């Protein structure tokens, strides 16, 4: 396998203005120094609690948000250094599916236009063959042909998410960011969409950054998993290894917090104490030290750096270094 996406020391700081007269600005360190690789045909799961920076990282990786600093390579090309024509040529190769199937589709467009528009813009279809191309993609994602001339409000959440997937896939992307694509859906519909994504990914060998807060879904779908806490990646490992041998205390806490669907498997773990600190004012040293059951004095002042435990298993914690 070879690397398709390579992210280096990526940061995104958002300035926050306190009241409109005040000159005081604070910064939210939404993403604070992330390095990650995604291989061709790999599904990388990205998990973490709300506000930890998953969406910001995902959007930066396809150039929807400009980073504060850092580098993003797509197939060896630094996309932050590309000029406009270069970016336009790259655009269809990097696509995103959003969490909210309701908000992400234009309510005044028919399904045909929603799916077809981007293909026209990028010259992947012409008026004459648009309908047949749209039909083909709709079939691929399991949408009946009869939906072609209908509007988003006429569809259920699962159907709208299929439309979103069809729109993204119509451009034959090589890299797809899925930002919580099933979180808004009912359990019985989630399985349909997960199966669809898995099937399409295998067929087309797309690389996927799969963002979720549901560890079960990530465990099922992703080859490798990265765990994020307050703007940083604290652990990355092949999914099986992460679930069996999680090294970072936060990863272990996340796994223990997940209620098991086997009533006989009762867990008598102690819940993690405290709240996720605000990214406006993250704790010094290891960001996790205020909640970590294993924190020592060193953790309060000194930031841990990524340490490679084994091949492809990296952890950012003083316990290992």
């Amino acid at each position: 396998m070879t690397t398709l996406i390579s992210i280096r020391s990526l940061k995104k700081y958002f300035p926050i203005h306190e009241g409109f007269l005040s000159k005081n600005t604070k910064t939210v360190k939404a993403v604070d120094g992330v390095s990650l690789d995604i291989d061709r045909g790999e599904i990388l799961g990205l998990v973490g609690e709300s506000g930890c920076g998953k969406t910001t990282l995902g959007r930066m990786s396809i150039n929807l948000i400009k980073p504060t600093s850092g580098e993003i390579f797509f197939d060896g090309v630094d996309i932050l250094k590309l000029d406009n024509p270069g970016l336009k040529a790259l655009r269809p190769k990097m696509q995103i599916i959003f969490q909210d199937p309701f908000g992400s589709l234009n309510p005044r467009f028919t399904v045909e236009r929603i799916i077809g528009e981007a293909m026209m813009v990028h010259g992947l279809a012409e008026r004459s063959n648009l309908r047949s191309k749209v039909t083909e993609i709709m079939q691929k994602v399991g949408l009946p042909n009869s939906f072609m001339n209908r509007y988003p409000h006429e569809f259920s959440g699962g159907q709208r998410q299929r439309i979103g997937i069809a729109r993204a896939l119509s451009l034959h992307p090589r890299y797809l960011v899925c930002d919580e694509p099933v979180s808004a859906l009912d359990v019985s519909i989630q399985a349909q969409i997960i199966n669809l994504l898995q099937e399409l990914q295998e067929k087309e060998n797309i690389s996927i950054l799969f963002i979720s807060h549901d560890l079960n879904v990530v465990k099922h779908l992703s080859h490798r998993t990265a765990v994020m806490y307050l703007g940083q990646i604290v652990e990355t490992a092949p999914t099986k290894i992460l679930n069996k041998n999680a090294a970072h205390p936060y990863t272990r806490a996340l796994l223990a917090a997940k209620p098991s669907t086997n009533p006989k498997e009762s867990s008598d773990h102690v819940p993690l104490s405290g709240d996720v600190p605000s990214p406006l004012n993250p704790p010094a040293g290891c960001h996790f030290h205020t909640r970590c059951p294993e924190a020592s004095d060193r953790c309060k002042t000194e930031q841990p750096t990524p340490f490679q435990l084994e091949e492809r298993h990296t952890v950012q914690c003083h316990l290992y270094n």
Partner: protein
Amino acid sequence: MPTRPPLLHIENLTTSFHTNDTVVQAVRGVNLHVNQAETLAIVGESGCGKSVTALSILRLISMPPGRFDSGQIKFNNQDLLSLSEAEMQKVRGNDISMIFQEPMTSLNPIFTIGDQIGEAIIQHQSATGAEARKQTLELLQKVLIPSPETRIDQYPHELSGGMKQRVMIAIAIACRPALLIADEPTTALDVTIQDQILSLLSSLKKDSEMSILLITHNLGIVAQFADRVNVMYSGKIVEEASVDSLFENPMHPYTRGLLNSLPKDDSESKLESISGAVPHPAFLPEGCAFHPRCKDAMPRCQQQPPLTNATKENTHKVACWLYEEGGEGL
């Protein structure tokens, strides 16, 4: 079998909403009971009628457009639907209280935490202000809010989502209700905060005789937290069982579909999924509402199957023709 009669016994409850051009029956002839000191879960997908069931118990459905078409809601053997509004007011908060899915919107932004918990105490116990403050501090400690002396004078916006939900729980248990209704109490929260709230509810349950009616769509929470479970689909209870029995031997094709669609450990295999989607409540199919999605549907399914005992011990009920006399089961 419980020696005492159930604390709550709902019989044949139908709650509907009437708007200009449509009638939606959100709850369609529901029977369920909650025993003393037990946790009953209601599980089901969005729109199946879980919240309307809960709000019906407390008579918090606005009428119109809402309407009770049939049924009784017996609490300690008294039909709540026959009480006057004044009598009902006494039941709310004193005997039955409720926590909601959105801790963010269910606290009043212009009053402090202390005011809001104190008010619940004063309203229901005729306590003085000083007594109420003392009790409020004790409650904040009980729901494990750090530095309660500071928090008591803060406003909701100064608290995180998890802390707001703790405050909601403090208000709900202030008068030691016999029944706590928790409608998706952790759905809006992060996994580690959800874990904290569930562990708090577990410990409160252990130290009291309180019964809990827990509404959730999370089967993990059901498995870990409830004693018994009712599965709801399109306004009806389709299966009722002890938690162990339901997870070991799910009977209704919908329940089986739900359990099978959960991601499993061997990530290689495809997930099983239920085809189609939940029907719109204004346009329900005839008979068993699940039949358009059911792999086992047969001509008889055009009629509504009753919820009947499926085991000799009367511990597992299911509403599906496969298990009626002459049916083969699965």
